[in-house]
């Protein structure tokens, strides 16, 4: 007898529909799974047999063939266990499907209970798109399943629940129906949104408030520009200058995620298995700060199951790299593609996937190994060429992607005590949100950092005087075309923060002053 069930597989950030066909035929007792299964899937045989028995059903002593179609797609993971088990029950006549069409996702435990799986959100999204609105998922995953609009999701705790669901009211009841009936949780609101998340995200609750940071006017200002325009920012300064502290204010300064952005992020988090049992679409932008010893796979993604890395988990948010020069060179070089294209493409022996990774990079580093190069008070202990060598550890192409660079100095103890209260994060966040909204409206949904070529020039709306000033600057300091564009992008954001329609002279001059520390523009005049 033949049974056919529907389940799904993860392919990058997309789900793909998989048809599970189970045939139970007379013959020597055996079970074959065909259709490009991986190791975890081949082991499904053993899990399914134990789960079926321990849930109180008979495991047919017949020849069982399980086909996963389409056969050419490589399947991985254990999310098919449930569909295979139910298929065996149906094919062996223990269960008659009467509940209407249903797709099943879930890994089985040997005792017949159902364990959560990763990637439920994109898989359910695909199923619904392909017309399978009724979906049974592991109970812990039902929250994320219901993020999908139009779904009729059932949370399942054990094989029994699945059997009852498949059987429907008129079907055969399970032999040991001791558990409570499966809970129906449907997606209530339009647009695929669950409940609105609480306004305070745990990440921002730990965030430092700008009001608690003394001095550092330049760095605060640079950070404000960076967050308003989405510019990648490099902070350079001695230990104890407050680079890390300043970075920890970022979660409290970022504007909230839009609904569609939040869903993109939820999909990535689902694939990474990071969505908790009660997920809501997050409002806070992600802020990820991998340690500088983090491995390539952790940051970039990959591994045997081609999981998304932190650069994808920081999608639409900020990736903070403290001690930039201490990161593995390969990790840093791999960040160039995400910074340029907003995606990361992973090609491995086990397959290829492309994950979104539109991150804003905020990095911090010491000016040299000991950290005190250029410090007015403390003498640097490094050799003469050491600072240059240290900074060269960060490759030129990566530095090119950093629109902003700001030098911090240690705040003298006297300033720590004397200066009045600094501006609070709330105030700065409002300015950032306003500037960002202005930019997004003008740039057709792009932040200023994403402007290039003609779109940049159009967005800048340079007047005659500003144009002249810019070309004077470019000539005087020998700016390359790329550096000029960088300057203009930053100037555009400075103007947005000031609420100006067009980029005027002062914004251009201020942008030039900002990067002057590194010889990027005005620094060349000094030498």
């Amino acid at each position: 007898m033949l049974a056919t069930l529907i389940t799904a597989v993860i392919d990058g950030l997309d789900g793909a529909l998989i048809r599970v066909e189970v045939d139970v035929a007379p013959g020597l007792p055996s079970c074959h799974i065909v259709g490009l299964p991986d190791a975890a899937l081949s082991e499904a045989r053993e899990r399914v047999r134990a789960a079926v028995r321990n849930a109180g059903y008979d495991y047919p002593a017949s020849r069982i063939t399980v086909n996963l179609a389409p056969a050419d797609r490589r399947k991985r993971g254990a999310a098919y266990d449930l569909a295979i088990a139910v298929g065996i029950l149906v094919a062996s006549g223990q269960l008659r499907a009467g509940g209407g069409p249903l797709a099943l996702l879930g890994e089985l435990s040997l005792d017949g209970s159902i364990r959560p799986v990763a990637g439920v959100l994109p898989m359910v999204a695909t199923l619904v798109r392909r017309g399978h609105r009724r979906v049974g998922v592991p109970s812990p995953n039902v929250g994320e399943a219901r993020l999908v609009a139009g779904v009729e999701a059932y949370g399942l705790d054990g094989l029994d629940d699945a059997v009852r669901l498949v059987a429907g009211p008129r079907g055969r009841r399970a032999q040991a129906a001791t558990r409570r009936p499966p809970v129906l949780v449907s997606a209530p609101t339009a647009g695929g949104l669950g409940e609105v998340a609480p306004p305070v995200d745990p990440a921002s609750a730990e965030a430092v408030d700008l009001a608690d940071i003394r001095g550092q006017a330049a760095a605060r200002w640079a950070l404000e520009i960076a967050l308003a325009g989405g510019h990648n920012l490099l902070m350079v300064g001695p230990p104890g200058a407050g680079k890390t502290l300043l970075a920890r204010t970022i979660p409290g300064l970022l504007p909230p995620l839009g609904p569609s952005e939040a869903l993109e992020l939820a999909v990535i988090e689902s694939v990474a298995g990071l969505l908790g049992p009660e997920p809501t679409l997050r409002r806070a932008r992600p802020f990820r700060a991998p340690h500088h010893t983090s491995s390539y796979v952790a940051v970039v993604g990959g591994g045997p199951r081609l999981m998304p890395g932190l650069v994808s988990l920081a999608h639409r948010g900020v990736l903070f790299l403290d001690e930039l020069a201490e990161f593995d060179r390969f990790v840093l070089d791999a960040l160039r593609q995400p910074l340029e294209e907003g995606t990361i493409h992973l090609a491995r022996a086990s397959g290829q996937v492309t994950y979104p990774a539109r991150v804003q990079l905020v990095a911090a580093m010491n000016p040299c190994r000991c950290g005190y190069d250029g410090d007015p008070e403390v003498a640097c202990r490094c050799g003469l060429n050491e600072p240059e060598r240290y900074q060269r550890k960060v490759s030129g192409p990566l530095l090119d992607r950093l629109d902003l660079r700001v030098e911090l100095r240690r705040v003298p103890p006297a300033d720590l005590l004397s200066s009045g209260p600094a501006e609070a994060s709330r105030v700065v966040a409002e300015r950032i949100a306003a500037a960002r909204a202005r930019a997004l409206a003008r740039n057709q949904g792009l932040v200023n950092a994403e402007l290039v070529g003609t779109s940049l020039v159009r967005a800048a709306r340079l007047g005659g005087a500003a144009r002249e000033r810019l070309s004077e600057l470019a000539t005087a300091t020998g700016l390359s075309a790329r550096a000029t564009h960088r300057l203009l992008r930053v100037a555009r954001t400075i103007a947005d923060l000031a609420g100006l329609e067009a980029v005027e002279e002062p914004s251009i001059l201020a942008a030039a002053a900002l990067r002057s520390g590194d010889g990027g523009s005005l620094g060349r005049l000094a030498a």
Partner: protein
Amino acid sequence: MGGLDPEERAAWISLSLVEGVGLLTFGRLVGHFGGAAPALAAIRAGRLGPLAAELRLRHVVRAALVQAAADPQSLQTPLRRLGLWTLTPLDERWPARLRGLADPPVTLHGWGEVASLEAVRAVAVVGTRRPTPAGRLLASRLGDRLAEVGVVVVSGLAIGIDGAAHAAVVARGGRTVAVIGAGHRAPGPRAHRRLMRDIVDSGGAVVSELGPLAAATRGTYPRRNRILSGLADTVMVVEAPARSGAINTAHHALEQGRNLLVAPGRPGEVRTAGCLRLLRETEARPLIGLDEALADAGIDPRLALAPGPEASPRRHAEPGQEGLGPAERAVAQRLGAGPADLDQLVAATGLAPATVASALGLLQLRGWAQASGATYLPAGPLLAGA
């Protein structure tokens, strides 16, 4: 050796350019054969043998000498290609200050104005390649003031103190001489290419005793320091750690009987330890201010010589504060009092960071301010008020 003998002069230059022939070998060759031209003739005639053995010349050097003797002109091709002039002690325009040296260079190749080497008054300003903002500012102020009173400033084109001094002179429209420790094909740090052009354009010179193709090595910088101090009457040391090129230059200055002024540092500060040691252990005098420094260098500022007519002030063409808005003026005023970072400027002016930064942008573009890390220094006309 009287008068100018073109043949001898050409032979002299060619012989000095032979790879592996240093001051010592050159001196023995010229001394033994009675001149550079006779030396080349003798080598051509195969009479190098006994002397070569005595000098223990390596085979490559002997081969190079034989080849040079056969075709002395080709050695000078790089000089022409790079547009260099060459001075030898045979020339009337050989800098008078170098004639008194115990170990003078054999030749001097250069770009720019030979006249800048013959200035009536010349002061060397040297110091560390990694100065504090205060040290950089002092170097700038010295350069600016010395240029203002018509003194030629000699330095080494290195980053740090040297660069600050050169740049300030150029900005003031004065003349400055850079003595480099390598050949002209790869002169000085890359970051100073532009400064080097400015030095030449404003009537100064970039000179080296090394042939144009010579590469910088460990030894070339200490050796060039004797020329650096030798081309000046007074050497001013701004910031120097205990073991540094600036200290080496200072010792050359003392041996050559030059006037030595040293800016003192704070006891215990590594970056100026060498300066304190010089003050304690030599007859160097402390440099405590611009006017005092000029006085100690024997320069009467009232007798200020006008900068050369061909030199015109660069970048900050307009004197005074025309073209500056109130924000620029406020920032300029604070910078005039000394180095400051953005925090301090914001605190001092009460303006928003964006306004201060914009003012700094304009001041830097005009050459009135410059950035050194997070610190901004006054420059150009603001140096006088600093």
